[in-house]
């Protein structure tokens, strides 16, 4: 029997939306079952949420105080112990999945397919390379397939499932060489999560300062949008790093992406190529962002934000 195991991403209380996107990809494989594993210290609430994802057969709940925080070196041996029952093991290609899955793959002596954007068959996949400027179609070698799923390429599976939850204990030796110290959140507040938001308002170097970014936040709040940024804006200290969109930041696919004062470097465009509609506002009429924008406006971004807010 061919089954796929999806590793759930969560913060101990809530399932991350990336998990349901990975389940969508897993469903495309056309295998006999899609199971989800929740590794947590106390994960029953998360397991309940995972059980509701449409298409999931069984949720495996592995509880261990060591799983309080998602540390790759501690989670990996537990996933390795579970992998024997599966033909595929997938995780979302978020920082969680990127950190964890290659560690699992190497222990099992398997290569990994990173950032799966399309499933052609159970062993053939498309994935982006060169900052999304080329797409390669790859075939995994015979045997266990390990991969991460580019979440921007998949819509979240819906929420009317009723999978059973099975508590599992796994026999694995867990290392003590890695200790979680703390997490300092970027302070996104109540705004929608960047990777799940239907609308994103983003600012670049052209915004000019941390103070000026308030205009971006204000417009985002009016639209119910998440807030993104270019690398230049993050490096300049205008906004925390977890807002960065691009090849090395977050890859997003909102319905509406509004770029203010962003020139549109290759590395930034890699993060927004799948957005539904791209709007660019920039003073420089030759900025490369206009080559991908559905609607471009050459103007001062602060004047535009002010007028937009009045018009909304």
């Amino acid at each position, binding site marked *: 029997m061919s089954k796929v195991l999806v590793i759930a991403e969560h*913060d101990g209380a809530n399932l991350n939306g990336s998990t349901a996107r990975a389940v969508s990809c897993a469903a495309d494989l056309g295998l006999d079952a899609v199971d989800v594993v929740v590794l947590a210290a106390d994960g029953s609430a998360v397991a309940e949420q995972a059980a509701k994802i449409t298409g999931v057969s069984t949720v495996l709940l592995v509880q261990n105080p060591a799983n309080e925080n998602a*540390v*790759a070196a501690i989670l990996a041996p537990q996933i390795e112990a579970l992998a024997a029952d599966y033909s595929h093991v997938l995780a979302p290609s978020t*920082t*969680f999945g*990127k*950190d964890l899955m*290659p*560690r*699992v*793959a190497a*222990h099992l*002596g*398997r*290569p*990994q397919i990173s*950032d799966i954007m399309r499933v052609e068959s159970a062993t053939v996949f498309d994935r*982006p*390379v060169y900052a999304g*400027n*080329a797409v*390669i*179609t*790859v*075939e*995994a070698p*015979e045997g266990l397939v390990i991969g991460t799923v580019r979440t921007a390429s998949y819509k979240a599976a819906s929420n009317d499932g009723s999978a059973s939850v099975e508590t599992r204990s796994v026999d694995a030796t867990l*290392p003590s*060489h*890695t*200790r*979680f*110290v703390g*997490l300092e959140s970027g302070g996104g507040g109540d705004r929608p999560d960047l990777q799940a938001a239907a*609308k994103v308002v983003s600012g670049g170097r052209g915004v000019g300062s941390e103070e000026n970014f308030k205009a971006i936040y204000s417009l985002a709040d009016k639209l119910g949008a998440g807030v993104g940024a270019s*690398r230049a804006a*993050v*490096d300049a200290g205008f906004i*925390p*790093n*977890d807002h960065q969109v691009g*090849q*090395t930041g*977050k890859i997003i696919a909102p*319905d*509406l992406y509004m770029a203010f004062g962003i020139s549109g470097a*290759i590395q930034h465009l890699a993060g927004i*190529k799948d957005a539904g509609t791209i709007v660019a506002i920039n003073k420089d009429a030759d900025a490369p962002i*206009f*080559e991908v924008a*559905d*609607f*471009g*406006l*050459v*103007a001062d971004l602060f004047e535009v934000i002010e*007028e*937009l807010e009045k*018009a*909304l």
Partner: protein
Amino acid sequence: MKILVGVKRVVDFNVRIQVKPDGSGVATDGVKMSMNPFDEIAVEEALRIKEAGNAEEVIVATIGPKACQEQLRTALAMGADRAIHVLTDDEIQPLTGARILKALADKEEPQIVMLGKQAIDDDNNQTAQMLGALSHWPQATFASEVKIEGNTAIVTREVDAGLETLSIDLPAIISADLRLNEPRYVKLPDIMKAKRKPLEAIALADLNVEVAPTVKVIKTTAPAKREAGIKVGSVAELVTALKEKGLI
């Protein structure tokens, strides 16, 4: 202690790459090549750890054809003490690459292996984590700050939710993210000095590393192009267009 840094020769990050019309890959003939930007950051961090008195030697290593020597010389000019070149003309995928680095780590016994978080050509983001698994060492990926305290490293990591801090025992693997540091520029006299620094070439076959099962590339295609959009003349026009699409 020693620090081993892995570097990779890649198409320069400013180059707009072209997909070959026959789908066999990306055109690389005559294209400018450079050290992977994340690896430059890894080299810089290793040098800073040494300059702070926490390491005695920085060794840089690469895997690939003869031309990769250029990137090793760049790392030596930045300040690395010596270089190891694992020579092969074969394409090396991350798992085999990690096995090769493991063989080098077994030989050199570094306390830290520093790598870039991903190479900007294959965008895999795997090698450091795989090396962590193979060596059974701790890993701190996507590092934006590294503090060495005796036999421990305190590493701040760039994660989706913000900044996470881990405390890891050495020896360990650390992968560099963009904001870890600003790599130094190489000065001309240092380029001259780098030519005299030791560079050891090892044939891949001599390392007795088993090549891992490989992912086969069937074809390479250009991504779907976004249709060219329009320029609007005013905010009112923009609002109308977005309303028509039901976006606001």
